[in-house]
């Protein structure tokens, strides 16, 4: 990014060269605009698409694929779309989005019979999928807790850093992943929680941590919750994979429920990108649990105030799909079945990948492949090894060694295992 001085010089240069020009100006305002680096995740898919090799494999972005490697539109979604196509008008949703969709979404996170929902204590708005929900919260945090920072786990989804940075909220990190065990560095995590100033804001992955797939156990979550209470920390949950981790949405919400039971006033971002396959529809929800209904109304109004100059009101189509499905018991049951199916396929692929690697006689441990949970596997490979996978084997993934298990199929798991073995066997 060009510095202020450079930009002013750019303008000065432009102005001085501009005098005397009649109608056409050949130099550009954008001289100092440098090309942005490719997004580390979405850039992978671009590169994959450009590759013409027949055996290419995309285990980069976390978008679910069936066993033929094809994108999937859930049956429940198709049916919902059939019902709504051409019939609903497209009038602006209220700034807070579809009330029906938000109500159903809160039940998923907070519980079907949540007292917080009954008492109307949750300020909630429809958001532009998980990204939009996180960004709304970050802007809200900046506006109403301007002196606060956000604690983000190492590692995390790379866009988390972009989001809080662009919202101008200073970031700190806390320990999370333990490279040696490819598991959770619980002791360091707890230290960081204890050492953070009281009342700090923490961003937690509710389930199926991205990119590591490493989640705390239920016991560990309880300890984290307890310590949060001692320290009066604020817990913001990013839940992008509810249903996708274990196959059971209720189970996947366990961490959140523990915090709720312990009396925390949490914030939560939810996304339907993965668990309903609505990626490109950008459907999600931001919720903030408040002390009472009055406060919830005030907080919601402020969230809307932030959304208005960003996009006015959120897109309707995906929200309609969600509310159609979740408010119809038959469709909802179908959805639950399909989510479990997707989660099961991934669990099956984890088993296969690990088996293959072990059968190839890999000198490295691979238990983490089946221990980790959700869409991603943090393989432990180095950027250099990943580069070799891409350049020599046409296997596309992010350079942090994250494998999107959703892209693994019975057709490519053998090839993938072989390639991984080849680039890691000497390490």
């Amino acid at each position, binding site marked *: 990014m060009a510095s202020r001085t450079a930009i002013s010089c750019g303008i000065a240069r*432009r102005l001085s060269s501009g005098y005397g020009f009649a109608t056409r100006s050949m130099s550009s305002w954008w001289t100092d605009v440098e090309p942005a680096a490719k997004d580390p995740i*979405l850039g992978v898919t671009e590169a994959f698409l450009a590759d013409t090799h027949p055996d290419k494999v995309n285990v980069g972005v976390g978008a679910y694929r069936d066993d033929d490697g094809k994108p999937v539109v859930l049956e429940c979604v198709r049916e919902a779309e059939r019902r709504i*196509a051409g019939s609903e008008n497209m009038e602006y949703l209220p700034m807070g989005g579809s009330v029906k969709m938000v109500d159903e979404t809160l039940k998923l996170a907070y519980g079907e019979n949540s007292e917080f929902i009954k008492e109307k204590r949750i300020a909630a708005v429809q958001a532009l999928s998980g990204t939009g929900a996180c960004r709304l919260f970050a802007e809200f945090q900046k506006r109403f807790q301007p002196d606060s920072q956000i604690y983000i786990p190492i590692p995390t989804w790379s866009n988390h850093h*972009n989001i809080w940075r662009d919202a101008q909220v200073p970031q700190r990190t806390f320990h999370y992943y333990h490279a040696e065990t490819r598991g959770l560095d619980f002791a360091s995590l707890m230290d960081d929680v204890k050492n953070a100033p009281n009342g700090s804001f923490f961003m937690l992955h509710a389930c199926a941590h991205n990119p590591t797939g490493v989640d705390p156990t239920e016991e560990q979550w309880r300890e984290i919750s307890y310590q949060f209470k001692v320290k009066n920390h604020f817990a913001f949950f990013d839940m992008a994979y509810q249903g996708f981790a274990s196959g059971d949405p209720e189970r996947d919400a366990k961490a959140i429920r523990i915090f709720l*039971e312990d009396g925390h006033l949490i914030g939560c971002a939810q996304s339907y990108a993965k668990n309903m396959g609505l990626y490109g529809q*950008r459907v999600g929800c931001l919720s903030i649990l*408040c002390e009472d209904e009055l406060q919830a109304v005030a907080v919601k109004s402020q969230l809307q105030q932030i959304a208005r100059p960003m996009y*006015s009101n959120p897109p309707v189509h995906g929200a309609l799909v969600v509310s159609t499905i979740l408010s119809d018991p038959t469709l909802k049951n179908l959805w639950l079945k399909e989510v479990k199916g997707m989660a099961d396929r991934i669990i099956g692929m984890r088993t296969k990948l690990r088996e293959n690697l072990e059968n190839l006689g890999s000198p490295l441990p691979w238990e983490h492949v089946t221990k980790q949970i959700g869409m991603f596997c943090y393989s432990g490979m180095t950027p250099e090894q990943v580069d070799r996978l891409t350049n020599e084997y046409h296997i596309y993934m992010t350079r942090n060694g994250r494998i999107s298990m959703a892209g693994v199929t019975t057709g490519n798991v053998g090839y993938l295992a072989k390639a991984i073995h080849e680039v890691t066997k000497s390490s």
Partner: protein
Amino acid sequence: MASTMLSLSFAAPSLHQSQKREVGCVETASLFGNKKVDLLFKGKSLGRTSMSVAVNVSRFEGITMAPPDPILGVSEAFRADTNDTKLNLGVGAYRTEELQPYVLNVVKKAENLMLEKGDNKEYLPIEGLAAFNKATVELLLGADNPAIQQGRVATVQGLSGTGSLRLAGAFIHRYFPDSKAMISSPTWGNHKNIFNDARVPWSEYRYYDPRTVGLDFDGMISDIKAAPDGSFVVLHGCAHNPTGIDPTPEQWEKIADVIEEKKHIPFFDVAYQGFASGSLDEDAYSVRLFVSRGLEVLVAQSYSKNLGLYAERVGAINVICSGSDAAARVKSQLKRLARPMYSNPPVHGARIVANIVGDPTLFNEWKEEMEMMAGRIKNVRQKLHSCLAEKDKSGKDWSFILKQIGMFSFTGLNKVQSDNMTNKWHVYMTKDGRISLAGLSLAKCEFLADAIIDSFYNVS
């Protein structure tokens, strides 16, 4: 943030007393001793009330209610009104003569087509749907425009007009931190919010002349001239919102002159292409003029009104640069701003646009429906004007209603008078005196004329 006390209703009284100290002392935890273990497991069974602790005091204690949005809040108030004669002339959403929302036939056809095709819902690239981006820039500039041929246009799909404006605002803030935006007085209310939240300083240029209920052209030119060189001048491509007053072609040339002279950057907000005159090409006149003069231009587009896709949030930000290299770089930086806002834009509406524009039959049908919608509004203008002229015996000239263009009319009513419209007549409009003719039927013109005349003459 208030410091709070840890109080546990099930703890022994003596323990409770000695716990009255600030939260955060590490010793607090050790006070529990065995109790700590109990907490972890008992917490669940005893439920929330017995864990009445520090965290029940919210960090967001002091947050006050945000004011209702001046435009979208109107619709909310309208919905709450139970009076039979109520009329919603607030938000600019097209209504049929029966005052029903209107889904264009081409849109229904496109959606059914899409359902048959069974497209997947994969993430779009950050810059949006390629077919949409191609269609939208061709619609704006004309398919044979040299700027497009030369690859000089950076186009990124955005969240309708608002989202596209916001992306541009964020871009201006990042790359032109010393520049400010100039917006017309008055302008669409959300322009100010967008620049505020994007942290771009702004000031106003004169636009509306209440004496003539027309354009204060001299004031406009003078203010644009007085602005610091290199300002971003926000212009409404056509059908100015809220006034409905557009510059003439000659005036557009003069505006381009002064912008060039001051090395300003023109920034068009095109939310009504097709809705002003009924012709998509005609309504793009101002933008095409500026581009043909070799200026670098920003243009935000929206398909909310002209395709009735309001809630699908379809639009685009275009930056017409002097070269293709600059365009590529600008596009990459716009993407970088979009990623932490929403990652990638919603696909559904973009596909609808691409399907319609990409199919000659559907495209023609759209043009016809566009003409029909714009035509209805012109008819309503005529009727409203003749009702007013007939009922107002004072001889006041109401012809400005005919001269104004697009969905809105600036009635010249002030805030108090506008309130009277709502409170007495149950006519909902914005407090700046703007009415949305898209929400008016021929049948209601007489009633509205009565309300306007009453408010104008009997309220001050």
